[in-house]
């Protein structure tokens, strides 16, 4: 029982710790904070992944990929914090940039396709594929 609850309690603890440490931005992050961040990043990634798979609206799907990107970015930042290494943060800046570029591209594409079929559903675009 205890073992089962341990992660939960530690998560709660780390959330509280994080809240407590809001003001102490420049102090070293604790293990728990890092674990929490990583968990959140994973969560973001998985939410994006699941959303990508289950939603049909192309805009939403794109947002889901953004979510995955941000999950990765969050993980990157966390790790950078963990290692006290700035390169991870630099990476994140690039990720954001690329994500922005992709967003522009995605919107362009979506608009292009919307013009052709008057819908945002990805499902209508399944002419190709094995019969």
């Amino acid at each position: 029982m205890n073992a089962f609850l341990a992660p939960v309690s530690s998560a709660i603890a780390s959330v509280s710790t994080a809240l407590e440490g809001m003001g102490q931005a420049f102090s070293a992050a604790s293990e728990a904070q890092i674990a929490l961040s990583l968990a959140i990043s994973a969560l973001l990634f998985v939410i994006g992944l699941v959303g990508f798979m289950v939603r049909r609206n192309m805009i939403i799907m794109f947002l889901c990929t953004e979510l995955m990107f941000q999950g990765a970015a969050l993980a990157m930042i966390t790790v950078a914090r963990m290692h006290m290494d700035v390169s991870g943060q630099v990476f994140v800046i690039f990720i954001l940039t690329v994500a922005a570029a992709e967003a522009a591209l995605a919107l362009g594409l979506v608009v292009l396709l919307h013009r052709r079929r008057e819908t945002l559903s990805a499902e209508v675009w399944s002419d190709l594929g094995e019969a």
Partner: protein
Amino acid sequence: MDAIGPRLMLLAPEILLFGAAVVAAVLGLSRRHAVRAFLPIFTCLALIASLALMPITWTEARANEAQLVLPMLGAFIKPLLAGVGILLVLVSAGSVDRGFEAAVARGRTTFDPQRVVAGEFHAFFLFSVIGAMLLCSATDLIWIFLAVELVSLPTYIMVAVGGASRRSGEAAIKYFFLGALSTAVFLYGFAMIYGSTGSLELDNIRTALAAQAAGSGIDGVALAGLILAVLGFCFKITAVPMHFYAPDVYEGAPTHVTAFLAFVPKVAGFVVLVVLLACVGWTGHSLVDGDGVRVPYAGLPTPLTAVLWMVAVLTMTLGNVGALLQSSVKRMLAYSSIAHSGYLVIGLLSGGAAGIEAICFYLLAYGIMTTAAFAALVALERRGEEINEINDLAGLRQKQPVMAWMLAISGASLVGLPPFLGFFGKVYLFVAAFEADQFALVVIAVLNSAVSALYYLRLATVPLVAPPSARSEEVELVPTRWPWIAAVVCGIGTVILPGFLNPLVRAAEVTTKPVADVTAAAPSADPSPAPLSSNASERP
């Protein structure tokens, strides 16, 4: 290390191409038709110029100084990209904006800068090639990420705007979304690698992983990250499990873009994988030491080997069996492209100098023979539409003998028939596989080759042998001759290049030239991540 000059010199070809891309984008907006028509030639010239720059700027000393993981990888890959790139430009020449330009020429419409895409197309083309070239010089994960995106993003647009294919929109949307998914996957993998090793620089990653390996074995997080990264890049190389998009996208995209997709992103993917896996530690060249004693193979960590093994087997098998059912040439070639990735993964798995050289050589062979097939397809049309059904090619020999022959040659080469180029690629891969004790893989690859013969034979015999049908009677050449020329060049290359195997292979061997400085930097205590030292010198 601090001197930026040499490192920039290493990038001189890319920089040149970048400038050319900008110019191309501008040229495309010219009101004068002649200028617009000059675009493909301009792009070719730019690629030729970059090709000319390469031997001047890319020297071994500079490469070593730049502390690249595989310093000389670019010495082969970059000319390959530029060379095949020239052919790919020829393939796409005249296809972009074709309908619009034709209308302008006939005076039906006037020039409208909003309706032309040729400038952007060629710019993006060059960007994508630049991205792939840059990968060879990657020193850290950020670079890899950016370069891969530079390869990918333009291709999404090229699929969408490249030509008159009715289904290009669908292809683009699939390609884009799934590509973004795969990017996220490898990005997360990068984060994990970063987390485990504490660095984004490949050199440091290698050191850290070596230390891990020397200790209690490579960290689980690092492994998971590596696997995620590998799987993410599988998208680029159209390997299982990320290959599902390929048939649809290849079929839906305009054929000349398909030709591009089948080569440039794939080269990029393999370069990334080679660079990445080189960080994990192949033991170097071969399992044979000087006295002919077999030393135990200590290559990639077992889980990674296992994943790659499965990827290789599944990719070639799914690719080949998938291709069997196709009536669409493009779709068939898509599956064939998947299958060839499977063969190439054998090279990754084998690792070491033999593996990398085999991959390089196979990429060359694959590029030429697959471009031959696509170029021949681009050179033909039926009622103004591109060829898709294989039966449209029936009896092609009677009206378009040259194209029929090129298709047949490329089919024969793709299946690995001697003495065409593809055969030697396969031999080289098998040699590498034997060097890595991957006997089972060879057997599976052999069986797969036999299966592939089932459909390549169709590619070769339908144009040459089958009687023409009513549909195929309507097949004719497209107005422009460039794709035709590209097909002929590739076809001849497929036949002629086996006569120059030695120079080609020596060029491929350059990629694994030793890394003087890096070797010294590697921890001497642990030999397992020892850099790839050459065995070329040991060879007779």
